[in-house]
């Protein structure tokens, strides 16, 4: 189990959403709709013998310019609990990330708002993913 394998696994799950560009590192240029997988925090020593660490990842989904109505429609689709475009469903479609972790859960989508990339404002949502590995 490695952080890189977990990040890669989450990205692979997200790539099942048609039309969503997925990045495992922050790209120089963003072409929405795009998802960026970022490591947020790690809690080490959750069991003896290194039996468990808890990783918190943030998946930022950038849907488009903040003023575009299409951006807001994309956001609804990506935020749905289920459905072909649901980020939660896609990330949880393979909860062991093909062996990269023991289990994961999309805890919440706590933030929706504007982010600035290259002097442009985009509408984005953040998904909190907790990975047990």
């Amino acid at each position, binding site marked *: 189990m490695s952080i890189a394998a977990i990040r890669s696994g989450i990205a692979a799950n997200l790539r099942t959403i048609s039309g969503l560009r997925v990045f495992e590192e922050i790209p120089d240029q963003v072409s929405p709709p795009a998802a960026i997988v970022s490591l947020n925090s790690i809690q080490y*020593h*959750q*069991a*003896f*013998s*290194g*039996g*468990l660490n808890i990783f918190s990842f943030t998946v930022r989904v950038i849907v488009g310019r903040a003023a575009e109505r299409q951006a807001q429609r994309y956001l609804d689709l990506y935020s749905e609990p289920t459905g072909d475009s649901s980020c939660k469903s896609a990330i949880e479609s393979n909860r062991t990330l093909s062996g990269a972790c023991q289990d994961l859960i999309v*805890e919440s989508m706590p933030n929706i708002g504007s982010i600035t990339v290259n002097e442009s404002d985009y509408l984005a949502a953040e998904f909190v993913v907790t990975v047990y590995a």
Partner: protein
Amino acid sequence: MAKYVVTGNKVSIAGTDVSAGVARAELTITSTEVDVTDFASGGFTEVVGGLKSGSLSLDFHSDFATDGINDVLTEDLVGTLVQIVLIAGNGTAPTDATPSYTANFLVNSLSPVSGAVGDLSTFSVTFPMSGSVAKAVA
């Protein structure tokens, strides 16, 4: 002197190392208190130790895979005695600084199904010790 942060105490149940499924282990050995106060006690109570006993508290992460905790501690063991070996001080083998404690414990409780939605499935037990505990430093 070497105080230590718990990261890897070792727990073996019936010969299987289950440490990776354990988040907390606490062995407590106790003695009853027998009052021997008499007229010569100078106005204070006097006591001696009576029968000794022990208990082992463990916090587990549920795991039904082969050699996971639920594959080792199965429901048919409830009501039976099981040998459990602990190595303290984050040790993997007994030494002066990482002594082992071996004893028989009564599996008096298991929770094969546990946890609220969204939480890691865990369960805690406290097994009473039966007989003495053997300590080893080598």
